[in-house]
């Protein structure tokens, strides 16, 4: 029979292709005004860099923060900022989903022959968000150059892996947050609390927070696997909530599980929208 539902792999490839096409169009249109792009990207870099300036100011008064030195905190900051910046660059637009549901423009995306998530994510792709990624990478570079660590091949390999898995974890939070907006259209702020808020939290060492908060960020919304947990391995530290050392190997699995859960949440949200119309 001709009318078969395409397999999941085909749909995913379709989605990536559509995402690429739409993003390409936005990038071309952004690049029509190069100076404006350069200025907004720099502005994005500068604005996000203030977070690190705040940390620098703190360290002008103290030697260590919760037992962590400046290069170590810079390592946390650099890994989470880069990871978050990548997720925000690729998927940041999904937080407009609630508005699309409210004003009905989501319907327009539903009558196109490409997956809705790809269209929502690619809509108004903002290349200026590269500013945050660059800023994160600069701080990470500074951290790697100054931190006192016995570099082994495993530790070296762990750093890019941390950034990638961290990006995937934040991506899962973005998608899950967007899925939640199918049910609560004003929930963009709740989503921001987890994405932007989570990023800010992870810029500081876990030892300065209450243990219950650290547990929540580990077991409930597993953002601790972006940097706190794998940093135990890279920096040779103990977990403040007593996680065993092998947990530092978990981020790829946690990220995969989080992405799968977010994907299911998205599908549930879209299905609910299509049966209720709001």
């Amino acid at each position, binding site marked *: 029979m001709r*009318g078969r539902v395409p397999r999941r792999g085909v749909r995913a490839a379709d989605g990536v292709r559509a995402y690429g096409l739409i993003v390409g169009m936005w990038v071309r249109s952004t690049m029509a005004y190069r100076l404006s792009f350069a200025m907004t990207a720099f502005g994005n870099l500068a604005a996000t860099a203030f977070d690190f300036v705040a940390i620098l100011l703190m360290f002008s008064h103290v030697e260590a923060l919760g037992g962590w030195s400046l290069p170590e905190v810079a390592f946390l900051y650099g890994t989470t900022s880069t990871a978050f910046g990548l997720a925000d660059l690729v998927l940041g637009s999904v937080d407009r989903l609630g508005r699309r549901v409210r*004003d*009905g423009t989501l319907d327009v995306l539903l009558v196109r*022959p490409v997956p809705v998530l790809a269209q929502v994510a690619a809509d108004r792709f903002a290349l200026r968000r590269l500013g945050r990624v660059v800023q994160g990478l600069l701080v990470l570079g500074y951290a790697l150059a100054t931190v006192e660590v016995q570099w082994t091949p495993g530790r070296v390999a762990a750093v890019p892996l941390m950034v990638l898995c961290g990006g995937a974890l934040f991506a899962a939070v973005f998608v899950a947050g967007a899925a939640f907006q199918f049910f609560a259209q004003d929930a963009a702020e709740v989503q921001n609390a987890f994405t932007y808020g989570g990023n800010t939290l992870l810029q500081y060492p876990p030892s300065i927070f209450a243990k219950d908060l650290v547990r929540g960020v580990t077991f409930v919304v597993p953002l601790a696997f972006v940097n706190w947990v794998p940093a135990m391995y890279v920096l040779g530290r103990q977990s403040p909530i007593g996680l065993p050392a092998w947990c530092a190997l978990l981020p790829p699995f946690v990220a995969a599980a989080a992405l799968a859960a977010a994907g299911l949440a998205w599908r549930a949200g879209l299905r609910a929208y299509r049966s209720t*119309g709001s």
Partner: protein
Amino acid sequence: MRVDVIEVDAVEKVFDVRRRAGRLRRERHRVRAVDGVSFTVRSGEVVGYIGPNGAGKSTTVKMLTGILTPSAGRVRVAGIDPSRERTRLARRIGVVFGQRSTLWWDLPLRDSYRLIHRLYRVPDAVFRANLERCVELLDLAPLLEVPVRQLSLGQRMRGEIAAALLHDPEVLYLDEPTIGLDVVSKARVRGFLRDLNEERGTTVLLTTHDLTDIEQLCGRVVVIDHGRVVYDGALGGLHEAGESERMLVVDLEREFAPVGLAGVRVVRVEGPRQWLAFPAARSAAPLVAELARRYPLVDLSVREPDIEAVIARMYAGRSA
């Protein structure tokens, strides 16, 4: 050969609406937006799908495009179940929402078209031919480099219609395509749709409040009210069913007593101006001739009944 391209069979759509009742308590109640609608459209037909606001028109169109899943009943468009295979259906239908843009708001019209070309995987030659045709017939050449948000409503609507046709859809849904347009733009859009249907055999389903749209385009109307089909047939029959009336507004030289003409009802008199209602199915010409013979006529105009009035009368007639 003509085949059924749209099949709607006993389709229902029930929404659970939550309403606030008191401080915390919420009441749930069910709304039947579409309540057992059935009709079929054969390929090459132009059908007007009409009804008052909230009658269930948009909900039906959403089920026909796969946006909404029906609560019960069966829908097939081009042989496809829209809710199960939404993306496959999307390649074979074109949709124009009068109130919402399907174009990328901040991009020039040409970029939107390029994107549609790639997203729908339209073969290059087909795309070029379709774009050329639309640009020519809808006069889009001066608009192609303009960002969509800077277009006037009429310009945007022409752009939207072109966007919905670049991938050669078999079925075109138009939701209020002439709403808010000036007379010239309306005429252009209607002319284009008529040609499209005649030359390409594209099936068109049109929702509108504009009776002229229907008179000029649709061979058939399906009227829906309170989620049910209340009429399905030719437009002329609708007028009969609704016993609808047209209005002749005449300005006489001076004040007269209400004119007495067979088959004419004087609705209102205001100084030298009189409003005369007569059955919509009747021609106005002999009436005007008779009036001009008997009265000093200064000016006149004929007003068509609007869809709401026709349907309202139909209901009044039925319950009486």
